[in-house]
């Protein structure tokens, strides 16, 4: 399995707060059968400290060296980019990271209210050569299923959290997540693991296999990510 959304890299966002904690998170991932982990540290979140692209790359390189000494797991770097007015100009100046240097970026939308003109944001990303994956798309309360269908028509990919699938984030969110999977609108599943969030990728995988078949689970939990992010 591939975990496409994690906050395992320590000291850079609200994910792991120590090296030990990061190692524990990695051990958990390995125990669940995950072989490839994409680190998606927060970017442009106003409530978190700023970490530059280079600082993040340096932190990742150091961390990965330590991880490789202890564990048999592969890590890749990306960012979970929170939408802000500055986002497009930062993307233009290549100051933000895509997932594993692919053309795909993980976009986190605001939680309180929708972006005024999301069409324009997605359009601008496309013109700059980026393709957008909406992070945990089931969690934005202002998007009902109909609006999510409209959003999908903009040519974006959808990522769903594993704990939404298992129901740990609430019944409504679970319902939306499963409906999206049933409608074949989801491409990726990730744990979005923070120190405070339980990683239940295994349970989610079993649930998707049971409900929608093992083939579908394989695509969502592994094959799609491999194709999209050039993971061998």
């Amino acid at each position, binding site marked *: 399995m591939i975990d496409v959304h994690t906050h395992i890299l320590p000291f850079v966002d609200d994910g792991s707060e120590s090296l030990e904690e990061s190692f524990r998170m990695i051990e958990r991932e390995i125990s669940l059968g995950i072989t490839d982990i994409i680190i998606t540290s927060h970017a442009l979140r106003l409530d978190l400290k700023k970490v530059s692209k280079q600082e993040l790359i340096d932190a990742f390189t150091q961390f990965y060296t330590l991880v490789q000494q202890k564990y048999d797991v592969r890590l890749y770097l990306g960012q979970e980019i929170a939408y802000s007015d500055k986002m497009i100009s930062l993307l*233009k100046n290549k100051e933000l990271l895509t997932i594993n240097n692919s053309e795909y970026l993980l976009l986190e939308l605001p939680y309180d209210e929708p972006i005024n003109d999301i069409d324009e944001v997605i359009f601008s990303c496309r*013109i700059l050569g980026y393709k957008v994956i909406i992070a945990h798309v089931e969690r934005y309360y202002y998007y009902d299923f109909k609006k999510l269908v409209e959003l999908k028509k903009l040519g974006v990919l959808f990522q769903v959290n594993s704990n939404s699938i298992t129901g740990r984030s609430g019944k409504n969110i679970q319902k939306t997540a499963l409906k999206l999977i049933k409608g074949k609108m989801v491409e990726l599943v990730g744990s979005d693991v923070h120190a405070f969030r339980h990683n239940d990728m295994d349970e989610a995988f079993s649930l998707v296999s049971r409900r929608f078949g093992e083939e579908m689970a394989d695509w969502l939990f592994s094959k799609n990510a491999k*194709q999209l992010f050039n993971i061998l």
Partner: protein
Amino acid sequence: MFDFKKFKKKNRLEQEYNIVVATKPNSAYAESFRKIPIDLKYSSVDNEPRVIQITSSVAGEHKTTTATNLAAVYVELGKKVILVDCDLRKPKIHRAVEILNDDGLSSFLIDKVDKSQLIKKTKYNFDVINAGEVVPFPHVVLRSEKFQKLIKELRDMYDYVILDCPPVLLVTDSLIISEVVDKTLFVINQQLTSKSETKEAITLLREANADLAGIILSNVSRKVSNYGYRYGYRYKYRYYSRKE
């Protein structure tokens, strides 16, 4: 599960605007746009209009489609054309020509960018000035001397200057812009706009002394537009007289 073919299929953003004159030059739809310059020329024979404003009553009447296709027709005729997005509230030209909406008209008018950054080349061989970032009071910046001076300069630099403007019934911007243009073209979406809305908008333009060259009917139903052609034109140009 991940269907790359499906993903590569055009999404909604890619299907938004169709500059058929460039992409499907042999279509009847493209042909209907080619009539516009001819009729425009006849609207003022001795003094052919070169700075042309395109507006409508309400949103969604295909102003941007008309403006971009008209620009493409002039390009076909070997003319040098620039398209200016004067809709500073809901800009769309950049979407039609697929460029980023940065360094635009609004930023220029408030001295944030200079003229060299303003004019963008497009793959359709006409130039474009984007609307730029949204400003709180577009009508104020559009009334500025700097805007008038810019249009004058563009008139000297290009054969034709086409201004895509916001709808008349929603904001006053188009009425202000009508003062600096040679002619105004009025687009009516036949399936969308009511007669009373159209009348009201035209009255407002007249009161602002806009020189209305004619109306363009978009989204015309086949029943109305056949002239014996089976396919029917989607665009239709009509000369507008004060008696109508």
